[in-house]
């Protein structure tokens, strides 16, 4: 099968997004086992868990570099602006209509997406989609629509079951869904061929799809952090991110500062908590007390130095003033829009999309237009420094936020130390170690 030609413009646009997202927005980007992807020319549906909106798709886009990835995305993204719709279609994205968002009448439009996707598969393309059909708001694997399995089997059917179609489970993970300068991870699993189910599909298509779906979901569950205990989700999530989770990671030979190992440690911790049927009353009280005072758990183990941070922020203030442009609009404009969404999982999407598509290019243009008449080519230096200034500004504001958090911790935190120690001691007893 002929390799799909990827235009120079497509490569340039992808490179630009990679620079902005992985160079400025993310601190570290990890990708594992992309070599497990079937080679280009072999029909492959990449399916993944989905929490962080656009960033999940970008992660896969930046991981797969030997072919053009195709995507299926929520249809309302195509309504943002006609130009944006054209951009998405050009980038290889197709719309998926959902009854909860576009309504029942729009579901028929999915037939076009199915038809084009099946043809793309027949042509040996790789397509990413999210079977949960919408993003979750937590580390949790939800219900899978079987449409992806249907597309895989119908692609095979259209070729007289000659073509072997693969489904590739994958997962994504983040140190934090919100803010920036976080770490991100994409991990691919082992491709699952649907060929062994072809005969079953001919007589019992739904059973075939269910069986494949079960395998796919099991694999994604094993790759990702999947906290199924939703009643105690907040407590479990707090524990894994706290000094308790950090100590657990170290005790089990994982580096808590290295996201891939922290993920494995967190998965182990969550599994152990479920196995031991842990109870979380003390942890819940602790978590609520910390939240009420806006305190951060990490300050208990790494003593805050609010005076030093304040001094540092003051010393760097001149550079922070220089960095206000364009860093302030770069971060605050998207966050202004993100806060208007009821769902806070849109933060990252607004930051990356608005910054990449609008603010960053505009800031370069405006900087040049304003400065060139006065300082000529020296303005190019300022333009070249914009990415570094944006990152610096983020860290400068972090110094200020952390200084404030440090003062708050000094005021309220020590009173909660014994509560924390008691809660952690109780959890260690439940888990069977001290």
């Amino acid at each position, binding site marked *: 099968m002929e390799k799909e030609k990827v235009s120079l413009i497509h490569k340039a646009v992808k490179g630009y997004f990679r620079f902005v997202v992985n160079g400025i927005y993310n601190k570290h980007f990890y990708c594992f086992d992309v070599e497990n992807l079937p080679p280009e020319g072999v029909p492959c549906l990449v399916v993944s868990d989905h929490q962080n909106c656009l960033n999940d798709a970008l992660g896969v886009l930046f991981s797969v570099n030997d072919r053009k990835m195709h995507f299926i995305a929520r249809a309302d993204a195509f309504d943002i602006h006609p130009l944006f719709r054209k951009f998405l279609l050009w980038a290889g994205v197709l719309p998926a209509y959902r009854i*909860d968002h576009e309504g*029942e009448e729009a*579901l028929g439009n*999915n037939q076009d997406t199915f038809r084009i996707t099946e043809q793309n598969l027949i042509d040996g393309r790789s397509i990413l989609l999210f079977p949960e*059909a919408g993003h979750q708001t937590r580390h949790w694997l939800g*219900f899978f629509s*079987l*449409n992806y399995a249907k597309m895989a089997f119908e692609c095979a059917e259209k070729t007289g079951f000659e073509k072997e179609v693969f489904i590739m489970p994958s997962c994504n993970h983040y140190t934090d869904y919100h803010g920036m300068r976080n770490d991100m991870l994409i991990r691919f699993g082992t491709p699952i061929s649907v060929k062994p189910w072809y005969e079953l599909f001919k007589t019992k298509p739904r059973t075939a799809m*269910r069986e494949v*779906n079960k395998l796919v979901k099991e694999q994604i569950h094993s790759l990702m952090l999947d906290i199924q205990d939703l009643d105690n989700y907040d407590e479990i999530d707090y524990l894994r991110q706290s000094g308790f989770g950090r100590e657990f990671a170290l005790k089990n030979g994982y580096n808590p500062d290295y996201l891939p190992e922290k993920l494995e440690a967190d998965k182990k911790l969550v599994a152990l908590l479920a196995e031991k049927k842990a109870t979380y009353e003390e942890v819940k009280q602790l978590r609520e007390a910390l939240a009420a005072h806006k305190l951060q758990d990490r300050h208990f183990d790494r003593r805050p130095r609010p005076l030093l941070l304040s001094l540092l922020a003051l010393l760097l203030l001149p550079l922070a003033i220089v960095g206000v442009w364009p860093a302030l609009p770069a971060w605050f404009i998207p966050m202004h829009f993100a806060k208007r969404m009821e769902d806070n999982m849109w933060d990252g999407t607004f930051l990356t999309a608005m910054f990449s598509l609008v603010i960053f290019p505009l800031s370069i243009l405006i900087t040049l237009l304003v400065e060139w008449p006065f300082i000529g080519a020296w303005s190019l230096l300022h333009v070249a420094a914009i990415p570094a200034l944006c990152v610096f500004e983020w860290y400068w504001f972090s110094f200020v936020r952390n200084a404030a958090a440090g003062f708050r911790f000094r005021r309220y935190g020590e009173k909660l130390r014994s509560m924390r120690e008691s809660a952690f001691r109780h959890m260690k007893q439940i888990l069977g170690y001290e």
Partner: protein
Amino acid sequence: MIDALRPAIAEEFEVEEADLALDARIKETLDLDSLSLVDLVAIIEQCTGIKPTGTDIKDILTFGALYDYIWGRCNG
């Protein structure tokens, strides 16, 4: 009417009739997504003569609630 509906659902969705118990959850039992919702609506229409919308059905959690809905629609 419900007696005709149960085997039709079981056959279409390749499940056992016993799986369609009153307290069984529709979404999980039938792996009901937007496409298969359309199929379920078609079966209900075929077996009962009523024309539910997908929007009506998608929020019904259990088969018991579904049968109550159909009964209610049939009896005005």
